[in-house]
């Protein structure tokens, strides 16, 4: 059996009296797209935040690639190969598209205690960054301010930044949020290709996207995982239908 790339062990988190994450056990196997679905307020974003290190869990462990990373900061986790995109677009608006990706490349290169050489004269880095932009089809936008490009393009930029981190595991929090139909389907095709490069943990509301992309699905309800399996299994699972699909499609 393959060793899981990421494993959460009895993860718990609550705010005040509200339990957001309730003993979550999750195994993410390498080389697949693992989607997490669940109704609004099921605790998906809270879960991602704990995996990425933005939030500290109340209890439980997170193992990444066989190491316990529970106490590591989010920057350390990112250095180990855990990249994420944000639900709310968070690219650097006052910078150009290229500068955004360059930052990510810098992040992947290890420390940035280099005080003298201007980055825009670093041809190796420029090339690399342009490469990532080409991959998501934003090369012609490189010199525009991030604030000037369309929302869909900003989402693409966000992902290309995550890719520039050369992640072993990519955490995508609703990458299709706010996208038009055409942009969404372009994104789906793109993500499908990405499967060859990296493992993806995907949170997405768009069920068509999830069903067409995911190799494995976990269903989160009220902070706990009620089922994990292939798309087919999950669709057939009566508990899921009752708890989730029923609600959503009622």
């Amino acid at each position: 059996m393959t060793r899981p790339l990421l494993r959460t062990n009895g993860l718990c988190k609550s705010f005040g009296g509200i339990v957001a994450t309730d003993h979550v056990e999750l195994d993410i196997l390498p080389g697949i797209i693992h989607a997490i679905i669940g109704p609004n307020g099921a605790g998906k974003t809270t879960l991602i935040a704990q995996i990425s290190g933005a939030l500290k869990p109340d209890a439980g462990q997170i193992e990444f690639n066989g190491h316990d990373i529970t106490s590591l900061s989010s920057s350390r986790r990112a250095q180990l190969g855990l990249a994420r995109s944000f639900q709310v677009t968070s690219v650097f608006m006052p910078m150009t598209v290229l500068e955004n990706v360059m930052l990510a490349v810098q992040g992947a290169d290890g420390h940035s205690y280099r005080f003298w050489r201007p980055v825009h004269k670093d041809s190796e880095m420029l090339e690399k960054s342009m490469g990532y932009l080409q991959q998501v089809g934003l090369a012609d936008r490189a010199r525009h301010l991030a604030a000037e490009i369309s929302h869909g393009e900003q989402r693409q930029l966000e992902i290309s930044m995550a890719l520039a981190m050369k992640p072993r595991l990519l955490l995508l929090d609703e990458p299709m949020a706010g996208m038009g139909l055409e942009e969404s389907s372009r994104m789906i095709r793109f993500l499908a290709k990405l499967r060859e490069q990296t493992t993806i943990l995907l949170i997405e509301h768009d069920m068509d996207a999830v069903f067409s992309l995911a190799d494995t699905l976990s269903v989160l309800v009220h902070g706990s995982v009620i089922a994990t399996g292939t798309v087919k299994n999950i669709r057939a699972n009566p508990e899921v239908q009752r708890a989730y699909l029923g609600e959503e499609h009622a």
Partner: protein
Amino acid sequence: MTAWFPSSISGRCYCVLLVLLAVAPWIFQWTDQPFLLDLLSRGLILAIAATSLNLIMGYGGMVSLGHAAFIGIGAYCVGIPAYYDLYNGWFHLGLTIVVSAVFALLAGAVSLRTRGVYFIMITLAFSQMVYFAFVSLEEYGGDDGLVIYLRSEFPDFLTMQGPVALYYWIFATLLLTLFLVHRLVRARFGRVIAGAKHNEQRMQSLGFDTYRYRLTCYVISGVTCGLAGMLLGNFTGFISPEMMSWIRSGELIFMVVMGGSGFLFGPLVGTGAFVILEQYLPEFMKFLNPSWLEYWHLPFGLLLVLLVLFGKGGIHGMLSKLDSRTRQSDR
């Protein structure tokens, strides 16, 4: 993309300005205006301090209301050794760098756990502590301050003695500071600082330990400002705790904002405007009516308010408006 030989109007203005500053002592000697050299010397010292503040505030989003503490620390690093008849300039320089760095490291390590307005207040707290500490150091003059009889002594080719020599020390330090900031903000390090200003969480998810980068930046800024203090101690021949009160830190902020926060030459231009106003606004009021001298704070305050309401981006911002070709490359 560099600001050194720019095609833009504002860039050319700054080039001319630097050339003028380089030849200023000759001009003043020729026109027999030694006082203007003094005024300019003090202005440039404050410009170094303001440039150091601009590094953390304009580029890094860390608004410090306690930066004058570093000026005081630098000046006391000249004054206290001088009190014991130690005038070796290298010792003064070394001491200034070490003490400012250590204070910046300690204060920064605590302060940088906070952001925004909390950062403003905690830097204020640290500078107030330093202020009161020096007020109570009776041995070194306490509130009355400390007279520095002689300037720091350097080898002949680097001497600080005489107003022109000191001026070139100050000018050279300013050039170095400007060049340092210019390189720093364009290098990898500076990009991280700029990123952390806009979205710290995002930077962390890109693998940057932003706290450490900011702390490094704070220390660089503190040491630079300490150097300005060392020069001020030599220039004034005197240091008192008053020079590090929170009002002085506030004035440094005004100089940066007045000139254009986050622009290389903003602090220099802003300091110039500030020092000229401070010196000539009272003169002007006196000229209008001799008994109005004591009311010069009124037009000064009005100018500040109007600047904020209508002068977005400071003097640099206004210059840039003249300059249709200015791109945001001079960030």
